[in-house]
């Protein structure tokens, strides 16, 4: 199990198309404090890659190494056959959108956007037309003559973006650019930013701590955990096939089931489902939306769908009885917490609002294929689906 997962992770650090940026064994420590260890990552031309991680995971440090504001302690960064990490930031064809925008307060919006071109000594007419174009692209043409202090945070954010894009960099780095915006504007900007990236075709490396933002925007997500890459995969893959318990918990909600495996059957409490894993113990992730209310009363032991399987008694649809502990409204869905007969607490996401009002146990079911084996990675806040006695 471990080997297949590791190769899956290693495989997904390689992008499918031609590679633009190659991060090779990059490590960074500040004194004795190790911030990044052995990061290797290939980023494709035109890709939207999100570096996702909690605060302190090293995501901003990694971005700063790419921009040239920090020197890596070990490793190399290459951009299309050219060593990048030995060059000062002003020689790299990389631009950054800063978290706090970092607009020059003594210059107008126009001068801010034209700064890079003026430094590159482009002809005045070219600067003017490219600045006008860039401002139009971020819908800020009306503010060309304003000072940054006179425009709102969202508008400053657009200017910061225009200022970076106008230089037509090979690679654009974005350091939590949306984190200062309020929720609605933020969602709007996520969509716009994604569309803009498609339009200009520049490779984006986007740093965020917000997993939903990462899911909405990215082609691939690189999940960082305490300075190490936990998993690199597309949003769908990382959500549907989390490699580790940390990934499963960080990205979306999940139920972690600690199961004992005996001859192709995983057992957790009174739940049992078929698995390919060898005997021993393993951790499974079961998403709350993968558990549903059982509609019709079936036989307790359903016929197996795959007759060839060696243990025909174990159904691929697992059914269990549980009592509803509480129910929380989450808009389109409700989150239920239920307690199984065996005392296991599970979280279930359902769009079904017509739950029987009785105190009687309900019938739930899930598909064995949705119980994803995950490698256990230690995490302070990790919580297994636990016995009720442990909780109360």
């Amino acid at each position, binding site marked *: 199990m471990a080997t297949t997962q590791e190769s899956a992770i290693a495989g997904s650090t390689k992008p499918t198309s031609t590679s633009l940026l190659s991060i090779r064994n990059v490590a960074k420590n500040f004194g004795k404090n190790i911030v990044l260890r052995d990061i290797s990552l290939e980023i494709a031309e035109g890709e939207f890659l999100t570096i996702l991680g909690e605060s302190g995971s090293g995501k901003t440090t990694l971005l700063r190494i790419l921009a040239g504001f920090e020197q890596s302690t070990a490793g190399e960064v290459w951009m299309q056959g050219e060593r990048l990490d030995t060059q000062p930031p002003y020689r790299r064809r990389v631009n950054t959108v800063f978290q706090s925008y970092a607009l020059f307060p003594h210059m107008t919006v126009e001068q801010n956007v034209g700064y890079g071109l003026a430094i590159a000594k482009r002809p005045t007419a070219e600067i003017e037309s490219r600045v006008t174009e860039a401002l139009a692209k971020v819908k800020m043409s009306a503010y060309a003559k304003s000072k940054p202090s006179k425009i709102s945070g969202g508008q400053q954010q657009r200017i910061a973006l225009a*200022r970076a894009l106008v230089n037509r960099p090979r690679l654009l780095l974005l350091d939590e650019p949306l984190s200062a915006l309020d929720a609605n504007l933020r969602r709007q900007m996520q969509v716009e930013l994604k569309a803009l990236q498609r339009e200009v075709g520049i490779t984006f490396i986007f740093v965020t701590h917000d997993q939903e933002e990462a899911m909405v925007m990215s082609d691939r997500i690189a999940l960082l955990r305490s300075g190490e890459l936990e998993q690199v995969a597309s949003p769908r893959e990382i959500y549907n096939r989390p490699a580790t318990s940390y990934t499963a918990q960080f990205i979306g909600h999940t139920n972690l089931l600690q199961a004992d495996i005996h001859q192709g059957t995983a057992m957790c409490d009174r739940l049992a489902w078929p698995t390919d894993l060898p005997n021993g113990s393993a951790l499974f992730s079961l998403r709350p939306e993968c558990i549903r209310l059982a509609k019709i009363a079936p036989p307790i032991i359903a016929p197996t769908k795959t007759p060839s399987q060696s243990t025909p008694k174990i159904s691929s649809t697992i059914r269990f009885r549980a009592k509803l502990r509480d129910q929380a409204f989450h808009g389109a869905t409700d989150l239920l917490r239920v307690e199984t007969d065996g005392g296991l607490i599970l979280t279930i996401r359902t769009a079904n609002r017509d739950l029987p009002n009785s105190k009687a146990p309900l019938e739930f079911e899930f598909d064995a294929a949705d119980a994803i084996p995950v490698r256990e990675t230690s995490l302070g806040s990790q919580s297994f689906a636990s016995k009720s006695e442990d909780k109360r």
Partner: protein
Amino acid sequence: MFSRAYRTAITVPPLVWVAVFLLVPYLLMFCYSFWSVSDSGTIIHSWNLDNYHELLTKPVYWQTLLRSMWIAARVTFFSMLLGYPLAYFLSFYAGAKKDLYYQLVIIPLWVSYLVRAYAWKTILGTDGVLNTSLQYLHLASHPLDFLLYSPFAVVLTLTHIYTPFTFLPIYASLEHIPRNLVEASHDLGATPQQTFWRVIFPLSIPGVLAGATFAFVLSLGDFLAPLLLGGPSGIMISNIVVSLFGAAYNWPLGAAISLCMLALVLALIFFSERLENKWSFQ
């Protein structure tokens, strides 16, 4: 939050202090400047503009004033030349030693002004440290006499004394520049030098203006350095005021000169503040 009585109790004493020791003396000076003094040496309390007339017509006064401004301008220039790079180095490159260097710059301010002026006297004098060394090294055959009792000595001493005063506001303004602006500039392709002239320097202008105002105003009104080190050619306007209030016993004329200087300085501070606000983006 505080009771009315309490607020009165803490605000009245300073107000009284300012009124008695600042406003009243200014008012008295204002009155004196329109009075005159008789040949027998008594103040005649009759209002006239003779003092101001004398000030404008007698070359010695406005020439001394111009020389004082010229000295102050040079002091401002040199203390800027020393203070800015020092502040820039400390703010951007001193790293962990920043606080130590900062203290080292500040420490001279704890030493009495008089001691520092006297120190220069022993350094620059005919038998001073500098002349003795130069002769010992055979770089000079006889003591250089332009060193002491000259405008040179005054400019040198005042520059030494007022450089920390220019350093402080410049340092403060440099410290206020968000470092990500410097990073953004590098990120957009600007070399450190381009970044300095296009981003750092423009943003430090308020500090430069404040520092220049300090150096100019303080050295314009200085009278100790010219008294101790200036000699006849290094006389400044304040020395004239001192003698008018002292030996010459012409308080009305002294008051008139003082008020002119006050007006000059206030105008300077006013314009400097206007400019600072224009260049301030915080």
